């Protein structure tokens, strides 16, 4: 493997590892903030129980997100030093704004959110949860601005080989940003909600802590039902307004055709990049044209042959990244749809089959998000900054041996941490929310009075009662 391939693998592994955690924590931080507000207002113990339990899941994900994020920041210089030097004048300040407006906010208040219970007042706790969620959302905003500039660069001139900003507003609000930011924000909220719903469904399947689980499931699926349909529209707009207009090569790779002329939509393909054809291909007639908003079935999707060989992205990665996002969207839509139907029929808390399905699809939002990122990043290749800077010209001149060492090291560490994280989640979920019940562990916040006689249905499970 060459230096460039090693650096690409290292970067792809690191960002995907990082992305997994925001996919859980952004949505969850908003959820925690809502739950705490409900507890503070109603003083119902079940809300404190929910807050404490979900916080356990949140805490470890957040920590892993932080450390993996630090690695990316350094990698922009370590492995992509030329990229760093050339784009620094534009991307550096944007990510700098992220650091001062988002990371410091998160970092300043996360300690209180996690360890302040019993030490600070309710108001301080609540403000901290709000600040942390604001931080995570601002962070999403700035990072999307930075990455969108790399997709559709504008507001710059070139001086001594560096991209120098001429118009900051144009550089931050790029055409790609306008669509990708809402798409990403919805994506993290959806994947967080689905994650919460999946774990709640486990308790319903197991008949444990029902009061806790019903409320969590109901809120999470409510959010998903609202956001998933919007997301499908935004995704469609993104493809139409950004990829068609600015990055035709990405779109061609997404669609999976080499020649022009296919009016169908390819659902399965094994592309052969060198021979510029698909070894295997299954396509659904008419659908491709329909997606291009021509129900007569005559509009064909353009093929990758339109793009010169040297400017083609890898079709397999782009195609399958998109398919992962797309097929995951179908599951998400099914969840959202069924939840509405069941809710209207008053069966949301009873249907065991549905709960099992939700439990099995716990990580589906994360799959969609990783697939989406692979689409947009692999589809941007061979450019790092689309149309301006080739990835191969951006890589640091390091000894391949050192990079190989670091790739192996990172892979091992990520693997171990991912396993540790999953083991931790499974373990915490099995112990369950019972230990977080305020009737078992009182709220020691200064000045707190928990209405332990309130009607809130917090059943103890057989295990705890025993």
């Amino acid at each position, binding site marked *: 493997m060459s230096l460039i391939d090693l650096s690409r693998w290292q970067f792809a592994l690191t960002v995907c590892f990082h992305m997994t955690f925001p996919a859980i924590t952004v949505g969850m931080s908003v959820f925690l903030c809502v739950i705490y507000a409900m507890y503070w207002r109603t003083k119902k113990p079940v809300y404190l129980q929910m807050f404490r339990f979900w916080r356990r899941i949140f*805490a470890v994900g957040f*920590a892993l997100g*932080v450390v993996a994020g630090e690695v990316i920041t350094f990698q922009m210089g370590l492995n992509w*030093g030329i990229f760093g*030097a050339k784009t620094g004048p534009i991307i550096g300040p944007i990510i700098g704004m992220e650091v001062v407006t988002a990371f410091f906010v998160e970092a300043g208040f996360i*300690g209180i959110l996690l360890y302040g219970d019993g*030490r600070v007042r309710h108001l301080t706790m609540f403000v901290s949860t709000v600040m942390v969620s604001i931080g995570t959302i601002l962070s999403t905003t700035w990072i999307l601005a930075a990455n969108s500039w790399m997709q559709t660069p504008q507001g710059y001139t070139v001086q001594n080989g560096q991209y120098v900003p*001429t118009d900051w507003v144009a550089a931050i609000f790029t055409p790609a940003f306008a669509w990708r930011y809402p798409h990403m924000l919805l994506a993290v909220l959806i994947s967080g909600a689905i994650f919460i719903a999946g774990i709640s469904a486990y308790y319903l399947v197991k008949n444990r802590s029902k009061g806790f689980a019903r409320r969590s499931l109901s809120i999470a699926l409510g959010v998903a039902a609202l956001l998933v349909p919007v997301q499908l529209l935004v995704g469609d707009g993104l493809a139409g307004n950004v990829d068609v207009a600015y990055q035709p090569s990405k779109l061609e790779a997404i669609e999976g055709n080499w020649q022009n002329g296919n009016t169908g939509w390819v659902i399965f393909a094994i592309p052969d990049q060198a021979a510029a054809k698909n070894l295997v291909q299954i396509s659904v007639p008419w659908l491709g044209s329909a997606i291009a908003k021509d129900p007569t079935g005559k509009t064909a999707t353009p093929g990758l042959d339109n793009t010169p060989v040297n400017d083609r992205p890898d079709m397999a990665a782009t195609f399958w990244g998109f398919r992962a996002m797309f097929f995951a969207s179908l599951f998400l839509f099914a969840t959202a749809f069924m939840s509405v139907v069941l809710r209207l029929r008053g069966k949301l808390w009873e249907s065991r089959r549905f709960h099992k399905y939700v439990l099995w699809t716990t990580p589906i939002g994360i799959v969609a998000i990783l697939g989406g990122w692979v689409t947009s990043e692999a589809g941007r290749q061979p450019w790092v900054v689309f149309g301006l800077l080739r990835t191969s010209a951006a890589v640091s001149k390091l000894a391949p041996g050192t990079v190989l060492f670091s790739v192996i090291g990172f892979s091992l560490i990520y693997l171990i941490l991912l396993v540790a994280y999953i083991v931790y989640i499974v373990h915490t979920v099995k112990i369950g929310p*019972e230990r977080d019940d305020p009737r*078992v562990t009182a709220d020691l916040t200064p000045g707190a009075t928990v209405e332990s006689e309130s009607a809130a249905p917090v059943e103890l499970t057989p295990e705890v009662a025993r």
Partner: protein
Amino acid sequence: MTIIWFLVILFCLIMYIVFDGYDLGIGVGTLFERVPERKRHMIELVATGWDGNETWLILLAVGLWGGFPLAFGVILPHLYLPLIIALFALIVRGGSIELISQTENPPQILTWAFGIASLVAAFAQGFALGELTSTAHVVDGVYTGSEGGFPWYPIVLGVTVAFGYTALGYAYLKLKSEGELRVSAARRGGVVAVVTVVLGAVSLISIAGTAAPLNLATPGRALTFWGLIVFALVGAVTAAVNFRRRTDSHPTADLLPFAGLVVTTVATLLAFTVSHYPLLVPPSLTVNSAVGPYNTMVFLLVGIGLNIPLIIFYHWFAHRTFGGKFRVHETPQARTSILTGASNER
């Protein structure tokens, strides 16, 4: 503008070294602590603040990236290995610390991982700083390789920094803990502080043999440099003396070790800066040759510069909320297990 931004970056470096220094140092301390409760206490203390402390490192990196893009693109590949190893260690540390503090009976291996990763991170950071004194080849603003040779100076500096962080860690512990933990922190901290001073002197002398010897050509530089070194010494002596003292006879005895060491750290870093400015990496990468374009600097100074007071406030607020002596039995996790006993363990 170049100088202002350079000072901002220097400020981030100082904040990072002082704050993450103490928390890495406490991590190193856990390796030598045999009593499990005390170990846990130390880890919980770090858990409340490490994230904020590490954010200074991110601002340092990003500030360099935006303000001195060429330096960012050269220095990072130049320091590749030590930085990668420091990152490995920071990842392991961040993961293990939160896993430990969120579980009631964390497996031993996590506590070890936490301690060892802290030590490795401290050493690797010192090593990286030391590598800054070796030659990086730059052609047309692009890094093309480093000068080889046995890196004895980075090793010396790595060890010095590891000791220095540990001294900071013990000083912080003395400030924030009570009872036996405080006594043992005071005893060990004193010894570590003295060793650090000796190692510091060794690094100071041996820097002459590197590609970036001290530049004290003008009297102004020399005077500032030696003045700062005197400051550093005073700080270190104050710290060493007060590690030993008890609060009943000297009310400030818990604060002064930490304060003294902070003075030492700041003065030493400033001294090294004064003796090298404007050189960033030998032979020729300087602040002025690496500075970013005008529009970028304005954006940085306005956007980020104005936010700095705010982030200092957050940082202060976070530390203040956990102000005073830190008592571990107050944490929700520990309390849960006391009140519920084994019943919830199923």
